């Protein structure tokens, strides 16, 4: 089982151009900022928006191919779709919602109701079978939406921001449930999220997209260790620089050269963890390390750490303890020197 898609669309100012493949058994999260085109991509795979060009193939079966003009309408694609706000039919009972897909595909009323009830059983909501969706909590609706999408036995499950509509207190619990249910489903699972935590928790592989384009794909560990865009670096909370590496240092265009241990030659990314960056009020003496001046342009408390944004030739974020910050006697706008070791710079080809 596999999904193979090349999606090109124009959506207002956004040109969506994505090619990707998903292998059998994978849970893939499409991660990107708001407005990156994630939801549109999902809708295109479902056939809800026609492609400008490209193709969608599921298990070798062509669902859409602009080259040959083939197009399988949404209602005949073997998909399940969990919408961001679930879109449970408000006029139908929970049971009828879950049975809707089976009934649409010709299952008899009785059998559909039996199967739907089994699905409600699985998600622990069989006692709500006769209730209307409006009577359920957010987390329960999410489970009904999942059961409804899975009941008709799709080969491809698409989830659009499955947890975004939930409040923070229920999100963790529902996420755990969702992970469990995703694990029991055998088909391909593609979910869209802007929340890196959700992506890492639920998916085997991330596809990061920005402005309609793929920027990075890999396992959560690969993506977080080696971010390839500012967006991912910000999500992970590390400093990302891009430059040209030569003789153990990375030249940042329009900026300083960064000494980096083991830097290969060529275009590279350099990643520096904020905790590896030290801050001084005066230039640190006699040090072969990376040292440059800047101005503290933002100070924020994050848990038991303080993140200090330092604007200089390049912007770098440093993370220190509140005690260290107090010792530095630093306010926003204060002049500082920052330094980090060459061995704390991770370098990989761009």
């Amino acid at each position, binding site marked *: 089982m596999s999904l193979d898609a090349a999606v090109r669309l124009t959506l207002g100012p956004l040109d969506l151009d994505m090619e990707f493949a998903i292998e059998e058994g994978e849970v893939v999260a499409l991660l990107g900022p708001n407005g990156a085109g994630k939801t549109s991509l999902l809708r295109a795979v479902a056939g*809800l928006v026609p492609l400008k060009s490209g193709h969608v193939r599921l298990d070798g079966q062509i669902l859409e191919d602009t080259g040959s003009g083939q197009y399988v*309408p949404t209602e005949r694609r073997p*998909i*399940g779709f969990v*919408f961001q706000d679930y*879109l449970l*039919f408000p006029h*139908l009972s929970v049971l009828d919602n879950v049975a809707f897909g089976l009934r*649409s595909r010709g299952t008899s009323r009785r059998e559909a109701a039996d199967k739907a009830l089994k699905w409600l059983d699985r998600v622990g909501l069989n006692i709500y079978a006769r209730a209307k969706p409006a009577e359920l909590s957010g987390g329960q609706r999410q489970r009904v939406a999942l059961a409804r999408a899975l009941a008709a036995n799709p080969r491809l499950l698409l989830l659009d921001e499955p947890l975004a509509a939930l409040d923070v207190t229920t999100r963790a619990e529902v996420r755990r449930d969702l992970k469990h249910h995703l694990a029991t489903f055998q088909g391909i699972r593609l979910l869209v999220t802007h929340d890196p935590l959700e992506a890492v928790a639920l998916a085997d592989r991330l596809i990061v997209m920005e402005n309609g384009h793929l920027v990075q794909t890999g396992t959560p560990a690969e993506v977080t260790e080696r971010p390839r865009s500012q967006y991912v670096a910000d999500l992970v909370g590390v400093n990302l620089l891009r430059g040209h590496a030569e003789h153990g240092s990375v030249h940042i265009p329009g900026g300083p050269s960064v000494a980096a241990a083991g830097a290969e030659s060529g275009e590279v990314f350099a990643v520096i963890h904020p905790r590896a960056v030290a801050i001084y009020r005066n230039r640190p003496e006699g040090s072969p390390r990376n040292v440059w001046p800047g101005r503290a342009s933002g100070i924020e408390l994050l848990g038991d750490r303080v993140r200090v944004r330092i604007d200089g030739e390049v912007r770098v974020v440093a993370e220190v303890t509140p005690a260290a910050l107090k010792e530095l006697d630093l306010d926003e706008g204060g002049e500082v020197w920052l330094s980090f070791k060459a061995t704390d710079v991770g370098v990989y080809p761009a």
Partner: protein
Amino acid sequence: MRRERVPIIVAALAAIGAAFFILPLLGLVVRSPWGDAVKALTAPETIEALKLSLFASLSATAVGLVLGVPLAWVYARVEFPGRDVLRALTTLPMVLPPVVGGIALLLAFGRRGLFGSWLDTTFGITLPFTTAGVVMAETFVAMPFLILTVEAGLRSMDRRYEEAARTLGASRWRVFTRVTLPLIGPSLFAGAALCWARALGEFGATITFAGNFPGVTQTMPLAVYLQLETNQESSFILSLVLLLISLVVLIGLRDRWLGSA
């Protein structure tokens, strides 16, 4: 919170405005010959007119639903050149004097009308001055209310429910009947009720296109008008009956609108 103080001039004008509606109704109730009510109501002409009125107005509503819902759907969902002009044309009967509508119907479907003469010579179908003519006249005047209400309902509904249904394998017909129609249920009900009420009260187009034959085309409003000249008391009672029906419809609608919908 403090209660809003009503300026005297506003209160006075509002009171006159309300009285303007209440006084005629009061007149109708007070001056009706209640003693003769049973006799007037059970008179064969009354029963006939009432039956015809109910039959014709319900038929007009049925025709309105069958033809008006697809038209509303087209207006709400399909973009085509001239849509606004077409919508204006099909809305025209709402503002057109009904008598003019009746004359237009005669010119089109009359025995020597544009389309009517062909119907007559080809199929031997005559529409004016028949009960079918009554239904046509009432539909002509009342259907626009249904079209506009249903179109508004279709435009304001969340179409993503239809997409959700499609991802669940529902055919277009199933999407329409199982999702779209139930979701616009309140609009559909309100549109049908408005259409029916308008058809029930129809006078001008009916008398012009269908005439005033007892038992065939004489509906309640026509009977009321006719009796006003021959038997005033009876016409008061019939008016009261129409008033009562209208009131019931209005209250029913209000509950529907303020209720779960």
